């Protein structure tokens, strides 16, 4: 920023095409969309059953996506919730331990909300980093789930209700999928239209500025963690109903899969960027990939290698990453590292 005549930004180019380009460039879901398209095309060619039996695929997406949606709310604010896996398991155990189904569901959801409150308490009031706080809660709640369940699965008292829950309700969609769609719509609207939700971005983007702007940062953080806890508990309830028993060991694969879905979807771990829709796309890609791989009958080791490779390629081909690689390559070839923005 030394001698410059005046900073010329060039003429703003008008026209609809450029407006679209600019909007698209601001969007963070580009990579997720590209990945989804690739996954859909490859799956359509190799394992079309994934689409002919679309309920199964939707179910797989809902499995990964529900928790990821709740997580997105927290990550947008620049915080992390590692405890979702254990929240899921504990909520399921709590529900199954109560004979009355309705009471059990309500109690489990309340437990999820409480866990969110506790997490937020540690982050906001005590002042610990959310990564650490929720890591500790991850261990703690898992232990609680084991203790409460006696270290073995807890069966529902009303098994028929559970099985009925797994049956399609509207069209081919099961209650799980309907709840997932509802959760997605609710969160998408919240984060884009509701003022409190939009402030999540500000809280994540620049915490200090958000304070200065008068945003009730603490309240927003509480809300965010409560959303994450609630959704995780909901996922635990859904799983327990569909399985007709609560497994205290549940949730470990969901944790990392949801993070993957959110990050592929363009959500930035440090907060302030990303979208609920992006997470949906990420979950969709992973869900379809799962189903396709299972159908293919390929050896499970190879399946894992494929999933790992897809994740790897997806995450290094972020537009930011590619730009930085090009930048580094350019400067490397020019013989010295240039101090250039981005």
């Amino acid at each position, binding site marked *: 920023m030394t001698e410059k005549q005046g900073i010329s930004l060039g003429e703003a180019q008008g026209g609809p095409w450029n407006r679209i380009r600019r*909007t698209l460039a601001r969007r963070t879901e580009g990579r997720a969309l590209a990945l989804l398209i690739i996954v859909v095309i490859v799956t*359509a060619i*190799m*394992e*079309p*059953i994934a*689409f*002919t*039996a*679309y*309920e*199964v*695929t*939707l*179910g*797989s997406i809902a*499995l990964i996506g529900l928790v990821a949606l709740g997580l997105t709310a927290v990550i947008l604010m620049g915080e992390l919730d590692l405890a979702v896996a254990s929240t899921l398991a504990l909520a399921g155990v709590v529900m199954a331990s109560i004979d009355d189904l309705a009471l059990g569901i309500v109690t489990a959801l309340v437990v999820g909300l409480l866990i969110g409150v506790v997490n937020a308490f540690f982050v906001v009031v005590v002042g610990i980093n959310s990564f650490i706080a929720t890591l500790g809660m991850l261990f703690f709640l898992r232990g609680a789930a*084991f203790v409460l369940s006696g*270290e*073995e*699965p807890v*069966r529902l008292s009303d*098994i028929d209700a*559970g*099985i009925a829950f*797994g049956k399609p309700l509207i069209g*081919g969609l099961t209650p799980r999928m309907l709840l997932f769609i509802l959760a997605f719509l609710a969160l*998408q609207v919240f984060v*884009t*239209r509701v003022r409190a939700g939009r402030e999540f971005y500000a809280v994540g983007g620049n915490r200090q500025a958000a304070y200065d702007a008068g945003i009730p940062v603490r309240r927003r953080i509480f809300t965010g963690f409560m959303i994450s806890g609630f959704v995780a508990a909901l996922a635990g309830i859904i*799983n327990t109903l*569909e*399985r*007709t*028993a609560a*497994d*205290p*060991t*549940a949730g*470990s*694969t*969901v944790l990392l899969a949801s993070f993957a879905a959110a990050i592929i979807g363009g959500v930035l771990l440090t907060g302030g960027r990303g979208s609920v*829709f992006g997470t949906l796309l990420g979950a969709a890609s992973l869900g379809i990939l*799962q*189903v396709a791989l*299972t*159908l*293919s*009958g*390929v*050896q*499970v*080791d*190879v399946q894992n290698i494929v999933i790992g490779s897809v994740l790897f390629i997806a995450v290094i081909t972020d537009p930011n990453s590619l730009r930085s690689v090009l930048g580094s390559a350019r400067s490397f070839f020019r013989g010295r590292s240039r101090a250039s923005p981005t």
Partner: protein
Amino acid sequence: MSKRFLRLASLLAVSMLILAACGDGDSSDTTTGGDAEPAATAAPSDGGETFEIFALLPQGNDQPYGTTYLPPFEAKAAELGLNVTITNSQYDADKQASECEVAVAANPDLIILWPAVGDTVRPCLEAANAAGIPVTVTNSDLNPEDQELSAAYSGPDTYGQGVASAEIFCELAGGEDVGIIMVNGLTGNSTAIDREAGFEDTVNEQCPNVTILARQPGNWNKDESQIAASEMITAVGAENIGGAYAADDTMVAGVIDAFKAQGIDPADLIITSIGNTFLGNPLVVSGELDGTVFQSSSWDGENAAVVAHQVLSESPSERIVLFMPSVPVTADNADDPSVAPEW
């Protein structure tokens, strides 16, 4: 803002439409991808028809048992003309349920199920039944009330293995008061739960003179078992311990090492476990391990295929139950080739 919302809504609508349009297809034959296992693509050698099968397993190459279960299973399946698609849910009940949905959607001729968590598979069974797909069970049987939804079971009896190990222990204990330490499998894992229950119930019934002084999970790992056992010995006091039980041979090897590290000769104690593996059998021969229960992964794998084929070709009216004998292995028969370790 509203433009973006419109875009989002239309994208969702379009994708739903596309998916729905591709849906309602006629139930086509399962086309397993071109990358299927070589063993599964063999033409049936006996000139009979080929069957498409899904095998929903909770372990595979990620565990030593699964590693030696698969080859005999696949070989027998190929021989009998069974085209198998194998899954591995790694004992995650939700993952297995998801795989079950996929399997039912693929509409195979039969589903072989090795439950990850026995309490959670009923919905899978009901879905398969509703689709007219017979289900056979391998390795871990269903809960009694769910068994009617399956056509057959073959395999060991994980509860019975715990019983068998306890019976060896009770016999060796005589009538003496013996305090033991117990090392269990992965917490919450169904095999671990069943074996622990089998052992403990039998000891309480048949030889209440044997008391379990301390128990910890060894997570099927030798190193973790060794440390846990060593700490239990410290906690309980070596002089109070007359024996030990571990839920599998890998862990019992760790327990034995723990005793040795503390200067206690394991041959003086009564120690039993389950598995008769490459690690366990030599220990029985050397006298450090007093008894184990033979679990033949090859028997398990082969008979899963055999029973599945039987159900497909004979459509029996009664549920077939084929138990792998829980053969106790002690110093007397450890060298017997019929109980040569397989995994």
